[in-house]
């Protein structure tokens, strides 16, 4: 089992993802340079947060054309696990691996705070260790997390149970107060139809130890580890 953390110029959560996998979960992990066209035989890929290529044009819009994303597309189409966090989610949207697009936060400002999200679906390799409707406390830190879709796509996502995480209040209600950025239908994270690619705005990799505010992100990373271990067993 090996995780790969992609490093774009401007990635700034790459070290945190690396630390969460390598030091906290103690699983093999390596960095993958943005110009690499192969994924070093990794079994799961994390696209970390940050400002890839400065994000000058539109978040994720330049990274989408990088050599490594070509490899990630191929990997994803072959069923490989891909987790995009924050800028990683934005890149996955731009690359068409996930539906939807990001707009500026409704308040038009960068926001960093702990938010609560509810696990909507547990039949994904990213949420299998969570309870249905489990509330996770995770930090956000972004300017562009206002997730937007047309209503037909929303209906599609609902039908295929692709909405994985929703912003919520601490007690689990759908009140607008729990939504930090104006994202449509309180959507915080989605998966693709095949359920092997997930993107979310909150940072699970920043929430792996209670000393820094929350360890709730572990449930997502552990789900991935379990999925990979299960897959390894199945092929063995």
């Amino acid at each position, binding site marked *: 089992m090996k995780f790969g953390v992609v490093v774009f110029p401007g990635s700034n959560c790459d070290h945190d993802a690396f630390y969460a996998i390598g030091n906290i979960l103690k699983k093999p992990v390596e960095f993958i340079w943005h110009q690499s066209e192969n994924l070093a035989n990794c079994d799961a890929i994390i696209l970390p947060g940050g400002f890839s290529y400065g994000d000058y044009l539109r978040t994720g819009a330049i990274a989408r054309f990088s050599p490594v994303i070509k490899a990630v597309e191929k990997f994803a189409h072959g069923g490989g696990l891909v987790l995009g966090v924050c800028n990683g989610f934005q890149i996955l949207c731009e690359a068409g691996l996930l539906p939807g697009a990001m707009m500026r936060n409704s308040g038009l400002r960068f926001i960093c705070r702990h938010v609560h999200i509810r696990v909507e679906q547990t039949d994904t390799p990213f949420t299998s260790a969570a309870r249905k409707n489990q509330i996770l406390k995770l930090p956000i830190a972004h300017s562009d997390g206002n997730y937007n879709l047309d209503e037909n796509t929303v209906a599609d996502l609902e039908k295929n149970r692709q909405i994985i995480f929703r912003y919520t209040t601490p007690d689990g209600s759908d009140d607008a107060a729990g939504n930090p950025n104006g994202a449509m239908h309180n959507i915080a994270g989605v998966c693709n139809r095949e359920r092997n690619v997930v993107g979310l705005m909150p940072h699970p990799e920043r929430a792996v130890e209670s*000393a820094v505010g929350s360890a709730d992100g572990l449930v997502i990373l552990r789900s991935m580890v379990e999925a990979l271990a299960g897959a390894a067993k199945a092929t063995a």
Partner: protein
Amino acid sequence: MATAITEIKVTPEIAAEHGLSADEYARVKQILGREPNITELGIFSVMWSEHCSYKSSKVHLKRLPTRGRVVVQGPGENAGVVDIGGGLVACFKIESHNHPSYVEPFQGATTGVGGILRDIFTMGARPIAILDSLRFGELVASKTTTEEDAAKNRRVLDGVVRGIGHYGNCFGVPTVGGEVGFEPCYSQNPLVNALALGIARKEDIFLAKAKGIGNPVIYVGAKTGRDGIHGASLLASAEFTEESQQKRPNVQVGDPFVEKLLLEACLEAMRTGAIVAIQDMGAAGLTCSTTEMASRGGTGIEIDLAKIPQRETGMTPYEIMLSESQERMLLVAEKDRESEVLDVFKKWGLDAVVAGSVNDGGVVCIKNHGRVAAEIPAHPLAEEGPVYQRPIGQPGLKKETAANWFAFTPEGADLTQNFLKLLASPAIASKRWITEQYDTSVRTNTLAGPGASDAAVVRVKESLDSESGVMRALALATDGNGRWCQLNPRVGAMHAVAEAARNVACSGAKPIAATNCLNFGSPEKPEVMWQFSQTIDGLGEACLALGTPITGGNVSFYNETLGRSIYPTPVIGILGLLEDSSKVMKLAFRSDGDDIFLLDGPLAGNRSEHGGAMVPASDPAREFSSSEYSKTISGIVAGQPPAIDLAAEKRLQDCLVALASESVLASAHDISDGGFAVTLAESCFASNELSAQVNLDEAGPAEEVLFGERGARAIVSAKQTSIARLQEIARQYGVAATRIGRVTSAGTLRIQLNGSSVIDSPLATLHDTWAHSLERMLKVS
């Protein structure tokens, strides 16, 4: 007119336009043995500007304590370095970017943050935290502030906050703390002081000494453009006039993305072992980096400007040498290993070119396409600039009587309404609206971000002891009360050190070192130099007493507009070390039923020190008139700062550190702005809906007891099982620990004085006022 400027013949008038006095110009000619050309004149003018040369402050700065057991590198390098054990060092410094932030708030603040970050990673340290100490004019119109000024102040604050956020968030370093203050005097001259902290292994620290004859000099990073020319000399070293908006082209423009690449590339290039010396290009750009590296190394440097990557065509040597384009570095590599260095920068997509070499001539020689454009002896240029013993004059004392002081409200009055006004004042109100625009959690080291503890606390992952599982943490706090320094610069400066150190101790960390940013008016005014000299004395005394040597910082003079100076505002950053990161103390009450104690390092006797002379303890109204409450409720700013007893401060701080090391306390919060009542309320606000019920048995007017700002005190809470140990440790350190009440879940904050109620309010009412006041003020337009 690219060529025309090089042909300008230098005259005394042109020298004067460059800010060089007749004496300074004579000295230039003496050093060169001839008339300078225009490029050389430009180089002298920036190197000898107040900002770069410290010509007015040097003689005073010598009086600061800079040595100590943990100090690895004191003032004089890009940043201070202190030993934090386990083979690791912390590298930290604070710097001002005041004038650019007024002229162009967003860019001024971004480049302030960018500059201080570069200072840290130039030393080979990876930045792990940023703090900002900000001062603005009043945000709402009042007797002292017009609506036009208030609107401008709100715009400046908004731009500065966006700028700080933009740079730090993109660069990927958490902005974890600092403070924000408001006084009318900052209306035309806001203060933006940015502090950065980095971590390195002790043996990996890099210095800026150009060594090794024949070694290549390499330029890396962003291309050089025409931005920021004379930023240091014309913007930072002169007061503002009505034409200051015309200085916008002097403001630099920052690009945090390029700086992030530069950081990663520099640290990676340093690991090749092929780099000998490195210096960032900040103020005075290429001029300062070439000259200082050669001067410190006792060598000479020759570069050819034709090789410097340029953003625009037709730049003259004068423009290239004086440009303050951001995100650039100059480094010296080992001969024949330059390709190792160049390859790393190429990998990160950055320009890197060999621009020249180190020689033994002791001269900085600037060529342009092979032709000499400037040739100046490095050492005299860098180190033998003018030094002034500026005239000092104590301002005439205003006649001060009780009639000017705060008049206490008669006994028995309900003070809740005034308390609400105080909680709504921007100095006291929650700064969440600001701090939420900063990424506070990236790098996953933040143990206490804004508002969680009295100091910002970040752990140092590199310090993990694999056997014990223990990690060290560093605490940082900034402080500086300009109002107090205006009333008494020496005592005010002592308070700044004492409060920052007390904040650090309240987080559980032991204060170990300091950095300072000294914001003052024009040094050409004797009263400003008096304030400066007094401040230095106060800082020195306090830093000695509290065991926090000063490792660096910066001086910012000419903070005045249309002849009006700001309050003298020394901002002190104190670094603390927490041996075990799990022992961090926060300010929030933790559990219903915990006991609340007032810790007080009582003043020695009833005599106190004010401005050098021992005077009898004064009328309480005299000290109270300098408080936040007096200013907010009565508009009175007068009297004296609270008396200070550094020995008492030291006892309290040592006591807090000892209590933390044994995890005796559930919470700790020092008493400062707004006094006892505000401190108690903040410990409730930060908690999960806990409140408090306390009774104080103290003589004196109720307002003084509730809102007085005397130092050396903290409000702490503890479980009942820890009380005996709390009292024992307090006794051991000579600190009075008085049980005053308990944490409740009643949802009401109740404060009694000698048994009668003085404040009784639903916590939700207080919290709503405190939490949203700043936001409400900023929405006004």
